[in-house]
């Protein structure tokens, strides 16, 4: 008994480098051997709301997708971007991408490229999607999109004049869109979209964001200012799965190439690493508490 106590107390005073090492391994091993652990994914309400909202869009509806993340948060947000784009294209929705972070430009490009190269849909630039360039200014740009988009954007990323792009006709401000989807990892992000554009002009807004932002965004979700939310990597995995099932079951979808192979996304495979790391941390916390309890009792 004394021995066990001693061990626990020792555990409580572990060098933090040891914790670092274990955390590192708990992430590394599932990534190296993904087939060792396989855990099913269950969807949460907020992700379902997002899916339903996007699913209710009709053919030809216009959706503004805003990219506010960069390379560092790519693992969390990028799978969402791809899944959302797939979902939109599978319903024949027109997509307009706008980056509000400098790196968002590249992320939008990668996401579109990934969807195009998957050969699932026959989509063409300027017919099914338009990519707008990055403009510095954050919330000013959101404000500008809300009031007068053409004063901010005159060309798309490939320097084609917007006046020459057919799918840009009739789009002058935010009220010309049917939906805004925001992929954000910070500021400007979904809060700015609520404050500066969507709330005021009553344009439905959904968001996918990093997990750290969720608690800040939840009041907006609760009040319906943001319709559903995809929360971090699990949110991405859930959405990926929903889209994957949707594409597989929807055999009559005219937008889908029948020959193409639908592959599940990346977030799903990352979830096992995530699960193990979380489990390890919980175990740390439990051990930490036991040793804390024992030490405290000794002092008394």
């Amino acid at each position, binding site marked *: 008994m004394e021995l066990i106590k001693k061990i626990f107390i020792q555990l409580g005073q572990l060098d*933090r480098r040891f*914790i*670092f090492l274990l*955390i*590192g391994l708990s*992430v590394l091993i599932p990534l190296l051997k993904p087939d060792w652990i396989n*855990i*099913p*994914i*269950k969807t*949460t*309400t907020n992700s379902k709301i997002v899916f339903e909202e996007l699913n209710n869009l009709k053919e030809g509806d216009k959706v503004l997708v805003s990219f506010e993340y*960069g*390379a*560092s*948060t790519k693992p969390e947000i990028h799978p969402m971007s791809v899944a959302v784009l797939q979902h939109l294209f599978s319903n024949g929705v027109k997509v307009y991408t706008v980056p509000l972070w*400098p*790196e968002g*430009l*590249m992320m939008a490009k990668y996401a579109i490229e990934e969807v195009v190269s998957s050969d699932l849909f026959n989509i063409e630039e300027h017919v099914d999607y338009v990519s707008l360039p*990055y403009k*510095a*200014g954050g*919330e*000013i740009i959101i*404000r*500008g999109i809300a*009031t007068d988009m053409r*004063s901010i954007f005159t060309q798309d990323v490939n320097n084609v004049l917007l006046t020459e792009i057919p799918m840009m006709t009739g789009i002058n401000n935010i009220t010309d869109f049917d939906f805004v989807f925001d992929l954000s990892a910070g500021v400007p992000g979904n809060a700015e979209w609520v404050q500066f554009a969507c709330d005021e002009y009553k344009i439905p807004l959904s968001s996918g964001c990093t*997990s750290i932002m*969720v*608690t*800040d965004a*939840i*009041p907006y979700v*609760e009040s319906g200012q943001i319709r559903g939310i995809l*929360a*971090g990597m*699990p949110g991405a995995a859930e959405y990926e799965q929903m889209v994957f099932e949707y594409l597989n079951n929807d055999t009559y979808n005219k937008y889908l190439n029948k020959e193409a192979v639908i592959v599940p996304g990346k977030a799903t495979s990352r*979830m*096992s690493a*995530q*699960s*193990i*790391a*979380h*489990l390890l*941390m*919980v175990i*740390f*916390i439990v051990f*930490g*508490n036991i040793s*804390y*309890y024992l030490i405290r009792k000794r002092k008394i």
Partner: protein
Amino acid sequence: MKRQLAYFLVIFIGFLTLLGHFINYSPLNNFIDNDATQWFDIISGFAAFLGVINLLQLHLNKIANKRDNWRYSIITLAGFTIMIIFGFIYNGSSVAMGPHLKEDGSAFYWMFQNIYLPLGATMFALLAFFVASASYRAFKIRNFEATLLLISGVFLMIGRVPIGQLIPWWMALEIYICLFFALIANRFEEKKKMLFSLVICIIVLPLITYFLNLHNLSIFKIPELQEWIMDVPATAGSRAIMIGIALGTIAQSYRIITGRERSILGD
């Protein structure tokens, strides 16, 4: 006089931007909506020159005086100079200066992609380790507040990942019982009594729950509990903080635009 001028400007611009939201005069509205903040960006762009001069001064000083770690300052200066050269002098791609910053193939972009990005992303990823050691230290059942912190933190951690869905109802119940006892452990005078009642609870409560057919309640499903925590008490908390922050910001802004908060302009 010089100082008065600055205050006058703060008060004037402050009230202009505040009241401009209510006045029906489109140049003013347009100024507030777009130009005001654009101007800010431009002014801070000019200030960037000052930043650069300061950086150069600091590191050149360090090198000249051979202060601690002065050798590393050479690295900083080298990195800075290379970026400036690639940004303004040497292009390396076919597009014009300016757009070349984001062009795959320019020297600047190469530096961005291979030096800047990985460094930023790795610094960010270091947080995974720090958050582990911080939670190891912070999540202790010290008092009731700390316990709440722990409960909501831990339930979120496991409830959000697929592993949380694998936890059966009885295990969730046992976790609750253990937590409860951890919280009230201090109230017991005799250790044996506590252990005894803990064991009884651990054995009896699940049986009672099972026979009363209560085990399907969503409180025993960690993912659902987690969602509730997030939707209800955490929402209340964040709403209170949000309103508090809004009030604080408004009051602070008010003090600024009425010229009362003076230390900002050096007074």
